[in-house]
């Protein structure tokens, strides 16, 4: 099984040179730590910044400079600031190449649920619905099963949906899977030490296995 940092590390291998990327809160934020130095990419924060830098040193903390998770951050050379309407214009307009976000459930046709649990306090969807409705490529970072052991990769989402037919790829603690355009999770890679049988047992949506499934390789 992968740790949260290993999920982030594996997702970082999907990042391509020249991409503008939006990272969600949680594991997706960790992806930034593993993007190779030789790639030129720009991270977008939907509260109005392109070019997110590292967390500041204590003496450089600026309350007027935060990311969408409300964490203090820094800017880089070439960073640019803008208002919220402009920020979502670049998101909906398809200018952001890759969105990486967390999920509570993903269905075998690529629907995602990640904003609301009936019976619990609803905090809101933030920018998630805009992001999943528009991004060209959406990768989900998630745990394969709930704490009680139920699969979170389902035939259909049971929780309220955030977006339909939008997820392209999933990196869970057990596997890398692609969502087939005709429905189903295509098993691409296994986490080290995790068997195909275990992934089959823990995936309640349609699982597609094409030949040998390699183990993930970490650099």
């Amino acid at each position, binding site marked *: 099984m992968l740790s949260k940092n290993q999920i982030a590390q594996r997702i970082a291998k999907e990042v391509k040179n020249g991409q503008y990327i939006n990272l969600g809160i949680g594991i997706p934020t960790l992806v930034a730590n593993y993007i190779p130095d030789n790639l030129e990419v720009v991270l977008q924060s939907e*509260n*109005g910044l392109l070019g997110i830098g590292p967390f500041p040193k204590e003496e450089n903390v600026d309350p007027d400079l*935060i*990311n969408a998770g409300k964490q203090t*951050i820094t800017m880089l050379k070439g960073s640019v600031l803008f208002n919220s309407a402009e*920020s979502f214009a670049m998101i909906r307009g398809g200018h952001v190449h890759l969105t990486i976000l967390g999920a509570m459930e993903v269905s075998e046709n690529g629907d995602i649920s990640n904003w609301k649990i009936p019976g619990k306090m609803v905090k809101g969807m933030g920018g998630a*619905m805009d992001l999943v409705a*528009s991004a060209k490529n959406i990768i989900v970072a998630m745990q394969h099963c709930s704490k009680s052991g139920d699969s979170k990769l389902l035939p259909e989402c049971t929780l309220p949906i955030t977006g339909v037919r939008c997820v392209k790829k999933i990196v869970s603690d057990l596997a890398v899977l692609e969502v087939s355009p005709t429905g189903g999770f295509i098993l691409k890679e296994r986490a080290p030490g995790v068997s195909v049988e275990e992934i089959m047992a823990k995936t309640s949506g349609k699982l597609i296995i094409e030949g040998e499934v390699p183990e993930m390789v970490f650099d």
Partner: protein
Amino acid sequence: MINKTVKDALEAVADIPTGAFLMMGGFGLSGIPENCISALLQRDIKDLTIVSNNAGVDDFGIGLLLKKRMVKKMISSYVGENAEFERQLLQGELEVELIPQGTLAERVRAGGAGIPAFFTPAGVGTEVAEGKEIREFDGKHYLMETALKADFSIIKAWKGDTAGNLIFKGTARNFNPIMAAAGKICIAEVEELVEVGGLDPNQIHTPGIYVQRIFQGKDYEKRIEQRTVSN
């Protein structure tokens, strides 16, 4: 140039009535109109509807207005950091309308720009789309969202001049510029107020045409929600 200056926050918010429909700039606690919120707390008004991306925290920002029971309804995209908010919501004392953040921003922008409605892909196939017109353009589905306008929009900028021209700093810009245009009366509080001519026209983010009242705020606390540092 038209002088938009008012003396202070109390004068700026003096005529906001009970039941007013307000917009307030800010993302989390960054770029919120701290002085105007403090001044509103001194007014004996209630039943406010507030459009704001977030609802502050228990003891700061819009959370203070909630605690004093001045708010009837919040229109926001994310309200997760506020226990008093949760209590009032669960007790049925407060209404909340949750809107995808990009839709919220565009509804505000449209309100200020004379666009009554628009079509967006955000929320198609979700409960956000319930009761809304869906149309297909180039094979993809979109839902219709309508513009938002306010009686008063209350915003915060870094620098401004007496004609209401504004410059923002960092990510404290967020919803502030678009809300300026969407309020019948826009109240802008700034950290530094200068005479006309004191700002470089090339650097101004929000033209003063949208701003009706401006004053220099004081004692900015600029509270940080998530202080994250590197070693």
